[in-house]
């Protein structure tokens, strides 16, 4: 089971209250529009949860710092990827809505999407492996299990 409050850390910045506050604000924001929740809303509801979990399960300050550094790099890659995908999705929607869009245009867009996804795969595969190397097997399992418990939140979308 997860601890309710993380162990005090002597060697790392105590930024987790800020992150928790940010996550709380995002959850509140998502919940305020519960009737219109989209899959992206649910992603926001869960946003930061993994970071929170990492801080809870990794008790060793040095490894906690190391995991935080990997995650920070990971976040930068995520933001870059998210921005690119938002642009591609906007382009896709415009083409979808346009009566005269040709098959060739859709094929070109599909190639762009695939290429960007594969580039992102390369980035996060490295980070995931590094993160697994930092965490003890039990800690990794615990973090993953918490993420699986979050599935219930996702399944609410279907209701």
């Amino acid at each position: 089971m997860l601890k309710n409050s993380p162990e005090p850390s002597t060697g790392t910045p105590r930024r987790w209250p800020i992150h928790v506050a940010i996550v709380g604000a995002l959850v509140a924001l998502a919940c305020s529009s519960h009737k219109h929740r989209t899959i992206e809303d649910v992603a926001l509801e869960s946003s930061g949860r993994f970071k929170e979990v990492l801080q809870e399960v990794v008790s060793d300050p040095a490894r906690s710092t190391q995991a935080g550094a990997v995650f920070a790099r990971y976040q930068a890659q995520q933001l870059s990827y998210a921005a690119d995908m938002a642009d591609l999705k906007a382009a896709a929607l415009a083409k979808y809505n346009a009566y005269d869009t040709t098959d060739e245009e859709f094929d070109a867009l599909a190639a762009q999407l695939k290429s960007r996804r594969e580039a992102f795969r390369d980035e996060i595969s490295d980070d995931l492996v590094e993160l697994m190397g930092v965490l003890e097997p039990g800690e990794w399992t615990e973090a993953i299990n918490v993420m699986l418990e979050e599935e219930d939140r996702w399944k609410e979308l279907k209701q």
Partner: protein
Amino acid sequence: MEQRSSTQGSTTSFHQVLIIIFGSLFFAGGGEAPLADRVGDAVTDSDRRAKAVAAASAIEAALGKDIDAVIDWHEDFFKAIGAAGVDEAKIRGKIDEIIEDLGQFERQQLSLRSDLRAQLEPSEWSEVFDGGGGD
């Protein structure tokens, strides 16, 4: 764009990565009203209307399947990376499976769009996708 506002400038996590990479591009386009309703309003010819509404309904049904698939992929991915002995090759292979599935979903969406387009005149199409208020 809604997608942009929900992905930029926010804290990100595994979940957000996964929804970004797993989230396909299914959408019905146009405004808030259900696509089938907008198509039904736009097409006056009764014969084409029934076929067009059926095609629009198929697009809307696919939207629900998209969510189911994302949830399944998400769960499957976490189980895979949480399994004993997982390595980079397995992670990459799992993501490759999802990328391929996404491509398949998107091809299916384009096929459904093509079915709808075949039933609509350009002006009707414009009414559905432009007259509905855009995104």
